[in-house]
């Protein structure tokens, strides 16, 4: 560790604004589960030497309330110094009353408007969680509030600020912390570092099925038919064969466990198809044109080459 004095002199402050839209705060809580660095390291310390993320606005964490709090989202630094915008939750669009981030001069500030306002001048937008990345649960049929992902809101408004999607319901904290560290150390990601749905390939580059500890059961045709039975969980609805994330290696909550290790099928929560296309969640996928898996004439599954867009 360099001496404190030199670190202080070199510290660059990166302002960050974290908006909560139509979500459940689960992504924020997941970030509190970060192990190394911890949430405290991310908020208080220099998360990488010489760089400090200054969390200007986060409704669940910040001390201030009301307009005092909202003022932190106004007139954030313009480019080139910039700021990072993090959006948790999908963005309701069907009616302004479906979601407000707060109120100013008696008028509710609707979520879509605030996202557009802050995204315009941000150096980058991180859409954290599946709701923000793809719509997720609030956008599930019949999508009562017209929820949309951040990319769609920005596209409609012609805003070209780069967006990085960190899906997951909720995401692993390492996926977020790693992405932030990468931004601070190396700047914006190169095009080839993101997949077709703007996820960092570092974390979402391989199918869960590729590294699943129950893969041997799959190959041997040994399938669990009821909850709690040993074997591959494919018949119980596992979406590991169509879901790209490093869950099997990284595992969750200080690596104590993850869905498949706990006997639960993967629900594909990092994919744009969650939850509707993969619903019912505990029923075997009806195989037709899964991106990487084909059903053979004999009724068994076979891995096939991934589409080029998803190749790492």
């Amino acid at each position, binding site marked *: 560790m360099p001496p404190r004095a030199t670190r202080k002199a070199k510290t660059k402050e990166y302002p960050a604004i974290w908006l909560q839209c139509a979500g459940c705060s689960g992504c924020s809580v997941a970030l509190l589960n970060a192990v190394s660095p911890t949430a405290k390291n991310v908020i*208080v310390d220099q998360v990488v030497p010489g760089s*400090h993320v200054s969390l200007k606005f986060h409704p669940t964490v910040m001390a201030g309330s009301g307009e005092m709090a909202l003022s*932190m989202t106004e007139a954030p630094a313009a480019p080139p110094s910039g700021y990072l915008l993090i959006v948790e939750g999908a963005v309701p669009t069907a009616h302004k009353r479906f*979601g407000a*981030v707060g109120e100013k001069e008696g008028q509710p500030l609707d979520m879509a408007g605030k996202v557009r306002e802050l995204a315009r001048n941000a150096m980058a937008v991180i859409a954290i969680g599946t709701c923000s990345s793809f719509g997720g649960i609030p956008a599930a049929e019949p999508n009562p509030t017209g929820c949309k992902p951040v990319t769609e809101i920005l596209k409609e408004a012609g805003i070209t600020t780069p967006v990085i999607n960190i899906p997951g319901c909720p995401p692993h904290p390492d996926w977020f912390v790693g992405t932030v560290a990468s931004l601070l150390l190396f700047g914006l990601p190169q095009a080839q570092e993101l997949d077709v749905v703007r996820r960092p390939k570092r974390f979402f580059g391989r199918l869960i099925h590729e590294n699943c500890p129950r893969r041997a059961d799959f190959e041997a045709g040994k399938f669990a038919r009821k909850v709690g039975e040993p074997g591959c969980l494919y018949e119980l609805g596992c979406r590991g064969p169509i879901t790209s994330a490093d869950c099997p290696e990284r595992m969750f909550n200080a690596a104590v*466990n993850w869905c498949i290790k706990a*006997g639960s099928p993967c629900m594909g929560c990092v994919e744009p198809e969650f939850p509707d296309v993969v619903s019912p969640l505990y029923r075997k996928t009806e195989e037709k044109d899964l991106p990487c898996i084909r059903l053979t004439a004999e009724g068994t599954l076979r891995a096939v080459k991934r589409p080029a867009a998803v190749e790492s």
Partner: protein
Amino acid sequence: MTTINIDPITRIEGHLKVEVIVADGEVKEARCSGTLYRGFEQILVGRHPLDAPIITQRVCGVCPAVHATASAQCIDAALGIAANVPANGRILRNLILGSNFLQSHILHFYHLAALDYVDVTKVAKYRGSDPTLNSIKQFIKRGELAPFVPRYEGDYRLSDAVDREAVAHYVKALEMRRKAHEMLAIFGGKMPHQVGIVPGGVTSGPNVDQIANFLWRLNEIRDFINTVYLPDVIAVAKAYGDYAEIGKGVGRWLAYGVFDMGTTDVPVAQRQRLLPQGVADASHQLADVDEAAITEEVERSWYSDACGGKHPSAGATIPEPDKAAAYSWLKAPRYQGKPHEVGPLARVVVSYLRGVAPIKAAVDGVLAELKAEPGALNSVLGRHAARAIEAKFVADAMADWVTQLKPGERFCADQVIPETGQGAGLVDGPRGALGHWTTLENGRIANYQLVVPTTWNGSPADGAGQPGPIEQALLGAKVRDEANPFEIVRIVRSFDPCLACAVHLVTARGRELGKFRVL
């Protein structure tokens, strides 16, 4: 007279707004509004019943395990398999939910509530060698004080030494709540949004290494509760003694009870639960919960009037965002037509009146230490104390349960999906009484209704003009400094609302609030 708007209140979950009218330094009117609508009940219609615990957990990322528990019990009943849930399944569900209780209570006191009482910036004067405090001192010296500043100023009363200790405990508590989630994930797969609890039981059985792993994370948290959390609540109570008089609620408490000790195949009033069910009032009358006495009113809610006055099992959710008389996305649940407070205080009052010995001893001990009467429990401080007392009680019980697990034995009943069915799952979560109700048709969910704790506490007024519990707790509160209305946010946060919240302070002659008058 000045008009002050505060919006949003932070450090609570979700989106809730409270408006109060202040005249002569006192709150004359209050209204509480949920400002986010996602339509979960509409999204659930037509889905497979086994998916309900997964979907409903996403209501809340802070307390998903209780939604999973209530939903699983609701679907157990609708599937007709509640009697078949094996003992391992029952205990593992309790351990998953119990871990969520510990996480939630620690998070609430230290990370959501404490910044109303603790001044982080006092650490700038620290001269010792503690690395945590020194890193915070460095942070303060760098001068970018977000997210701890800006904040209300003028009422931080802890001595420098106690304050510094509390800041160190804020950081330590981050680690403790993280470990509570690790405990949960040992049996629940991951957290937030665990995958372990399913209709019929849980998805995996206990192993000896998991039991040992769980027990020793738990023991570390128990030490923290006993030596840090409880003493810190007492220290805050001593410095802010007036808050034993502030934030008096409706004086009616409702608890469904939580942590089943026996079969779940009987109505809630007959369940054996660690924290018992009951309905209590300020004159110490206690009665069993009668599920049929619950209705939901919508006169002041953005829903069609056709949804009002119904029992949740027959409830409907038809949004009407332009309804003129409405001011909230929350419905107004009532028990026998009256608003009731739910949460740790409700459970502790009910347990005390039922003579649950450890709860009674702990409450009497805290009251003696603070030289307070039992009536002081109905207050801001009473809610914080009840939460801490309950955390200790639940953690101690969990240490027994984890050794009752039987590796190798069944943990999940067979899931058989009937064409039709009805179910209810009533269970207390960290923030209070939670109910899920469903009707199945053609093997799918035909109706699903939730009444969540903050709907009880944060409910708007009903057709009879009765304000909700948080609204009522705000009425009469003295506001010393309208620019720094500590009293309002401390009262609202003592309920641990599961919604991000916005508070407005306006004068009696303030904006167009007349049409929303609740007095």
